[in-house]
């Protein structure tokens, strides 16, 4: 009996593959319209863009918008704020899940472990609108729950968490970590689950206690994934968290809390300075692209991580 064979032919092979190409069409069109057309729109960055004149009619201003970006004190401050807030978030967002995963790994009761995991993942799924609403209520100076707690426990006077620049940054970083540490732990727990148990048995035979085992087996096993997560996070250092900041900030903390994304929103869509807003966005996109490409390359070189 003749055996049926299926051999993919080399070449474009339209007769067999037209369906595969047809499947690509809707997404290709959607991405063209909603991702590539806006890329063409960045030429507004070189114009004094007026919506009623359009891209064709607005006057060209060369690099003026960029000169303004680096010449104005507040825009330089905004770039600095973005990097500082982001850097703190990356460091704290790496250290806390790392330690949390180590601690959770020591728990032997499966039910307790599962309950803890369920509870700490939850805030990740709530939006900053919801959490912003809750935090504003809890952090308020006149009788917010946190300030009442601090006063009752330690006698600390009310702290203006969302109205004082330095406290604002602190609040942003802590609340970010609070929201995300549980979810970030998943990847570390997956790594821990993948460690070969015989390593621990061998260490036990050699007389290593739990602390030594952690130090010499668990921690080294988590280093590669930590490097990957950390490097990839560096690629996004210009994203300091628009949703969070926008929902928590106010004019009192612009100096320390305004970041590139909130600044673009205010200058462009609120004040109507569209050309300048586009320039700031373009600056962020270009630096961002460079950082992401570098980060992925480093993650590949250091930890053999590939996205696809």
């Amino acid at each position, binding site marked *: 009996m003749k055996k049926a064979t299926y051999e993919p032919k*080399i070449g474009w092979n339209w007769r067999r593959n037209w369906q595969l190409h047809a499947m690509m069409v*809707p997404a290709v069109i959607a991405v063209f319209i909603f991702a590539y057309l806006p890329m063409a729109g960045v030429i507004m960055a070189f114009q004094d863009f007026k919506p009623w004149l359009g891209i064709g009619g607005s006057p060209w201003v060369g690099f003026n918008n960029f000169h303004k970006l680096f010449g104005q004190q507040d825009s330089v401050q905004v770039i600095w704020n973005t990097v500082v807030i982001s850097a703190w978030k990356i460091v704290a967002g790496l250290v806390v899940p790392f330690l949390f995963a180590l601690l959770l790994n020591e728990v032997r009761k499966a039910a307790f472990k599962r309950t803890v995991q369920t509870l700490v993942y939850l805030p990740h799924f709530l939006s900053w609108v919801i959490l912003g609403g809750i935090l504003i209520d809890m952090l308020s100076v006149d009788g917010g729950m946190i300030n009442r707690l601090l006063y009752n426990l330690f006698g600390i006077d009310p702290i203006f968490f969302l109205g004082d620049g330095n406290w604002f940054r602190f609040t942003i970083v802590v609340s970010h970590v609070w929201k995300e540490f549980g979810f970030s732990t998943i990847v570390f727990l997956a790594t821990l689950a993948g460690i070969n148990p015989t390593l621990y048995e061998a260490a036990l035979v050699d007389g290593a206690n739990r602390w030594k085992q952690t130090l010499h087996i668990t921690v080294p096993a988590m280093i590669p994934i930590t490097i990957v997560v950390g490097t990839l996070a560096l690629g996004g250092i210009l994203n300091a968290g628009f949703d969070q900041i926008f929902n928590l900030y106010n004019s009192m903390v612009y100096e320390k809390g305004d970041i590139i994304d909130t600044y673009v929103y205010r200058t462009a869509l609120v004040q109507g300075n569209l050309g300048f807003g586009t320039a700031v966005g373009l600056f962020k996109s270009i630096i961002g692209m460079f950082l992401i490409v570098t980060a992925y390359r480093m993650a590949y070189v250091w930890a053999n991580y590939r996205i696809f």
Partner: protein
Amino acid sequence: MIDKSLGYRTFTVVNIAFLALLSLACILPMIHILAVAFSGKAAANANLVDFWPVDFTIDAFRKTFENRNFVNAMAISTIRTLLGTFIFLVLLLVTSYPLSKEQRSFKGRSLYIWYFVFTMLFSGGLVPSYMLMIKLGLNNSIWALVLPGAVDVFSLILMLNFFRAIPKELEEASLIDGANHFTTLWRVYFPLSLPAIATLALFTMVGHWNSWFDGMIYNTKAENYPLATLLQTIIVQQDFSKITMDPRALEDISNRTVKAAQIFIGALPILLVYPFLQKYFVKGVIMGAVKE
């Protein structure tokens, strides 16, 4: 292999207590807001409520549902979530299926991949996207909320990696039996990938329900606001100017217990799908992260 020393036993007790406290810290804010929502107005304003309602009443919830703007925004959010997730899933499946083929059998694959991946690296930014939406005339319509995010490249990569893990023999058998690629995708790949699809669908639903910024910038009329945007405006920004209503209703929405009730209702769908979500996502996330 378990250390039985006194030091380790002490550590275990401290550790469990610490982890329990940490988990509580993740849900106490939600419990607090719920307690405020069920409390009497006077008690709430006097900061007497911690984690248990004082002067229990459902007044705040009644007032919330009497508010036509709020109910309308809930309906818009629901439609947006269902429509957006449906479009997302259809595009996700038909796109990741061809992309999961080998470059050898599907010429053009890497070209398509780069076409999509480039959008992860570079974007036009807020202003050009905003201007485009105005130019297309999609503002003030639900399409402005569901179409821009319809193709998510990250999900695409997760999905195509999942498809690749399905044995090629199944596809061959199906094609030999006379099925075309559409049938193969629908009858073979789709049922086999339900866990991955469920994960991504739930993530997308949560994303749509939570999304507020697009609703704010693409809608000039507050009647078109999805719930998250409405909540953002009245609770976080405390800007009531965009909402037309009589003074009595205005007093209601600036009331602390009503705000708490609205926040809680805004979070409720997430809290409801969360148990199902939780079952899937750990597997789904790790599945996507681990490559063969």
